[in-house]
């Protein structure tokens, strides 16, 4: 097992980038601190060194959802196709970049794309965080990309 200092060094910046996308820059830092403290607290229970990264992003994902719960907003239940920005995700009005369009994807696809490209996880790890199979993770990323490519939203 690596010392936790190494986990912070190697994975910390990616967790921070991922959370900035999930909860926005204003709330990213608190959410990051909560994520890392929770991870440190539970670190000695991690048995499989190879699973550390997906475990860490599972905590980050949970904490990002908590941020929205606390704000009195319910995240969209899994699987519903609802276009809303009142949920953890990349929808930030006025962003103008592709991530604001990602935020308009069905939540599972948006999450899969965030985990794949912002957190830079493998499909296998995306599946572990989302508690779905690797092939289901692959499908969500693919479907999301397809929608983006076919012009979901208004970016050009």
């Amino acid at each position, binding site marked *: *097992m690596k*010392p936790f*200092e190494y986990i912070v060094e190697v994975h910390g910046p990616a967790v921070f980038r991922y959370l900035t996308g999930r909860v926005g820059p204003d709330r990213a830092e608190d959410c*990051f601190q909560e994520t890392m403290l929770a991870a440190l607290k539970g670190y000695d229970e991690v048995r499989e060194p190879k699973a550390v990264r997906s475990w860490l992003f599972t905590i980050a994902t949970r904490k990002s959802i908590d941020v929205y719960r606390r704000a009195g907003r319910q995240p969209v239940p899994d699987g519903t196709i609802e276009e809303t920005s009142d949920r953890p995700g990349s929808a930030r009005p006025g962003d103008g970049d592709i991530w604001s369009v990602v935020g308009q994807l069905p939540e599972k696809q948006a999450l899969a794309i965030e985990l794949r*490209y912002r957190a830079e996880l493998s499909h296998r790890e995306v599946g572990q965080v989302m508690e779905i199979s690797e092939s289901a993770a692959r499908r969500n990323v693919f479907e999301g990309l397809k929608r983006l490519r076919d012009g979901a939203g208004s970016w*050009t």
Partner: protein
Amino acid sequence: MSKNGTKELEAELKAGGGTVPDDWNRIRGDFTERAAKKGLVDVAYEIHETPYGPLVVAATRAGLVRVALSVENEDLVLEGLAQRISGRILKSDRPQITKARTQLDQYFDGKRKKFRLKIDWQLTNGFRREVLAATSAIPYGETSSYTEVAVEAGSPKAVRAAGSALATNPLPIVVPCHRVLKSDGQVGSYLGGSSMKRELLEMERARVSA
């Protein structure tokens, strides 16, 4: 209406990857501070510069647990601590570490003859622990032999085991294994190299006779 190919799309999504937040050092520092305040750090360590290169100085809540000379690979030292004590290791300060660093500086300046530190002995036990205790009793500026240390530790015949206990001393300098020589008076081996051992002994002798 396809405006972007998948490749371009992926490139756009990947942009900004690998970047580190502008104020990352502050964010990281805040985390370490909070973790320490919450009592979540099982092993704290700092890297301490000395005339013999950087040392790893690590402490648990119980006390100083490990000093590693610069020849030991820092990553391996820390992984060893993660394996044997706990993975909850952060580079952070702790009173025992500050104290140890001050005393190490004084020692290398020739201004300290005895370390007064709380020690966590958990990385050693049994006969090895006895050997280190016997070694700790060798006064500044003096030397002993592997045989004598084995006798002091209660097993006159275990000279080789005494040698191996000293070779794996988790607290070099603080537990002065450099004061143990071969029975024929030759300086013998030292993890930090024989020349470091010789220099430390010369410094100590010079201070004692001064």
